[in-house]
Structure formats: structure tokens, C-alpha cells
């Protein structure tokens, strides 16, 4: 029923109005894209807004909370910062806190992370044989935070996101 009504609407429009509608739609889509890409450029991060997927940073961040990231080169990585990083071979980024850094004179830095709610550091999560993370693994540093409503979001978020990524039940994440 609904579709027929929509088609009648479309049929009633002349060509110009149809083109106008299509252009309108295209404008909306490209505006959204521009805003997203603009955010990517400003923050320097490939993913300026991320959603927390696991409970390893509780009680600070719960599942479903939003984090705003920046990744500017002139901001050095220091301990205590919350970084979002990606391990080689795994596609889901992880949000944890920096525990140790060792930085050389030339700026090359290696660091270790740990989730607030985990008992041990993340060495068990890294790739086989990898003991430290480097700057290239970092997606961004968490600078802002927005918390979602807890009661319903927890369950819904988990259902939705777990359906998109199969391996999201990793206990360490």
C-alpha cells in the first residue's frame, strides 16, 4: 500500500522536480560525507569517533560509550593517556591506557598498554612475538567522552555490534 502511494507521488512530479529531489538527496549524503572527512582531517585520526565495544575500561567506559579521538603528530604519547590502537592481524581497534613508554632520542617510541579493568597488561593480546606497540599502531588518543544511557544501550549495542563483527567476545578486549 505504502509503496504504491509513493509511486503515485513520484509519477505526479515532473522531470524537474524529480531531478531536484535526487539532487537534494545527493546533497544530504555528500554533506554528511564532507563533515566526516573534515573531522578526519582536523583530528588527524582515521576514525574520529569510536564506540567502546568491551568492558575492559570499566568503570570509566562502558560498552556503547562514544569517544572522540585525535591523533596529531605533535602530541607525543605519554603514560596515562587512553589510546585506541590496532593490532596487526586484527581489525577491531582496542581502547586501553598507556602503561609504559620508552622513547629514543630520534622520537621513536615504544609503549605498553593495559585496560583499567584487566588484571594484566596487554602483552597477551599483541601479536606473537610482539612486546611493544609503536606509533603506527595508534588510531588515535581519546580526548572527549560521551556516555550513553546504560540500561538499554548495553544490551542493544552488544547485539548490534556483535552481529557485525564475529569475534567481539574476546575477554581481554
Amino acid at each position: 500500500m505504502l509503496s504504491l502511494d509513493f509511486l503515485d507521488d513520484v509519477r505526479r512530479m515532473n522531470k524537474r522536480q524529480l531531478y531536484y529531489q535526487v539532487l537534494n538527496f545527493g546533497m544530504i549524503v555528500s554533506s554528511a560525507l564532507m563533515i566526516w572527512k573534515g573531522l578526519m582531517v582536523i583530528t588527524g585520526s582515521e576514525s574520529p569517533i569510536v564506540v567502546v565495544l568491551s568492558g575492559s575500561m570499566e568503570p570509566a567506559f562502558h560498552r556503547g560509550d562514544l569517544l572522540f579521538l585525535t591523533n596529531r603528530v605533535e602530541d607525543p604519547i605519554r603514560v596515562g593517556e587512553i589510546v585506541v590502537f590496532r593490532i596487526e592481524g586484527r581489525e577491531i581497534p582496542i581502547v586501553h591506557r598507556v602503561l609504559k613508554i620508552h622513547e629514543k632520542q630520534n622520537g621513536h617510541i615504544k609503549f605498553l598498554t593495559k585496560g583499567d579493568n584487566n588484571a594484566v597488561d596487554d602483552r597477551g593480546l599483541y601479536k606473537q612475538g610482539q612486546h611493544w606497540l609503536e606509533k603506527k599502531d595508534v588510531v588515535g588518543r581519546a580526548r572527549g567522552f560521551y556516555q550513553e544511557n546504560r540500561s538499554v544501550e548495553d544490551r542493544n549495542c552488544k547485539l548490534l555490534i556483535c552481529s557485525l563483527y564475529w569475534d567481539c567476545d574476546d575477554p581481554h578486549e
Partner: protein
Amino acid sequence: MAGGGSSVEQPRPLPCSSLIGGAGPRAARLPCPRGPARPVGVSPEAGARALAHVGGPERRRGRGGARSRNARGAGGAGRREPVRGRSGSPGCVRSRALGETGAMNTVLSRANSLFAFSLSVMAALTFGCFITTAFKDRSVPVRLHVSRIMLKNVEDFTGPRERSDLGFITFDITADLENIFDWNVKQLFLYLSAEYSTKNNALNQVVLWDKIVLRGDNPKLLLKDMKTKYFFFDDGNGLKGNRNVTLTLSWNVVPNAGILPLVTGSGHVSVPFPDTYEITKSY
């Protein structure tokens, strides 16, 4: 036929006809009486065709009766005709507000507007929360004291060398964090970090101990003789004889919504490490 049709469809709000045959939201847009409403901009031939197409009043199937019939009529006449037809026929389609056609839609529309309003209020509140505390200074004085220092040289699998320095420290912390907590602070993540430089690395920072202080917990810290939570490994053997290891207490303020700043407490202590390794098993 056309005359007969037009005499029927003079737009008069007829309350009951909208309920007949309509289901759900479609009912709201079925206000016109049995006969089709003649659209204003359509030629008489098209109008006649529309009427003939409709036949008797029993044809309505509970769809958008008048509207779809008009569309077909208008379509037959010529597609370039502007769509004035629908809104042009006064009183038939749009003037039927949702509220008139049944209790269900009234409740729905009210719930909808209530939900939208509460969402915008929440958004404004969150932004207010953020903006009122965004520029606060969250630093307080901290007193640190170190009572025992010991150094060992143990096997280290995380680096390219056989053995690395491992330090053991016993410390005291005194701080009053009460002034930091306000309506927008959810928790404080405290961490005690040691910063130093060695021959191998220009800058090293190691977190030795951390603690989470939630809002509502006792904000006064009076810790004595604390052992480090995490191993104080150096990336190399740079702790031996290092006189300039600085301990500071910092915290990460986690707000309800807004910026996550890292604040360093004012007050630090220097830890001079011994020149020799401890070989006994004690700590």
C-alpha cells in the same frame, strides 16, 4: 456524471467516512466522502475519466481512496500537471489532522513529540554539563615520600638483551582530591609514574601504581608503605646509579560528558637509585 459527482464531493468534513475501510495511518488521509474529489487543476475529460474509473462508491478499498484516484485521473490527463490537485481540494486531505481519526494516533503523536522534546532537553543538559566544566583547573597539591629503594637485575624477555634492571620502591602518598570532584566528574584515575632518562632512551615513563577513585569515594588519600603494583622494568640497564628518577602522581579526569584531561599533581619526589644490585631474595 461529472455534475452528479461534483455535487457529492463538495468538501464537508465527514467524521465517520474516514474510519471506514481505512486502517492505521492511512485512515488519517481518507477524509473524502465516497465520491472522488475533483482536483482543481485537472481538465474535465480527465475528471470524467476519473469518475468513470471509480464507478460506484463501493469501490474504495481502504487505500488512499481520493488521493490515488486523483492521481490516476491526473496521470491520465497529462503528467505535467502540477500537483495542486491534492492540496487544492480544500478540506479533503490535509485538513484531517491526526487527532481526529482515532485515539491511537493521538497517543502516538503525543508520545512522539514528548520523546523528541526529552531528547533535545537531554542534549542541551549534556552540553551544559560539558561547557560549564571544560576550563576548570583540576590540579591539587600532592605530597609524595619514598621510604625504600632496591634494585635488581633480572632476566627480561621483552627486550633484545639478556637482563634488565628491575626497581622496587616503597612509597607514601598524601593528597586531598575533594576540590576536583564536581557535577561533571564521574571518576578519577590516579596513577603514580616514574620518569627518567637513560643512555638507551631519551625519555622513559613507567606507571608504578594506579587507583580508581569514584565520585562518592573518600577523596582524601592517606596511603603509607605502598608497594608498586606493576614491575618497574627498565628497557636496559639504565636504573643503576640513576639519580634523577622522578615520581609524580597524576590523574585522568573522566567526566560524565566532555573532555578527558590528564592533570599532574603539583609535588614530585626524586628517587635516587643505588649503584649496586641487590642479590638477596628479600623485598
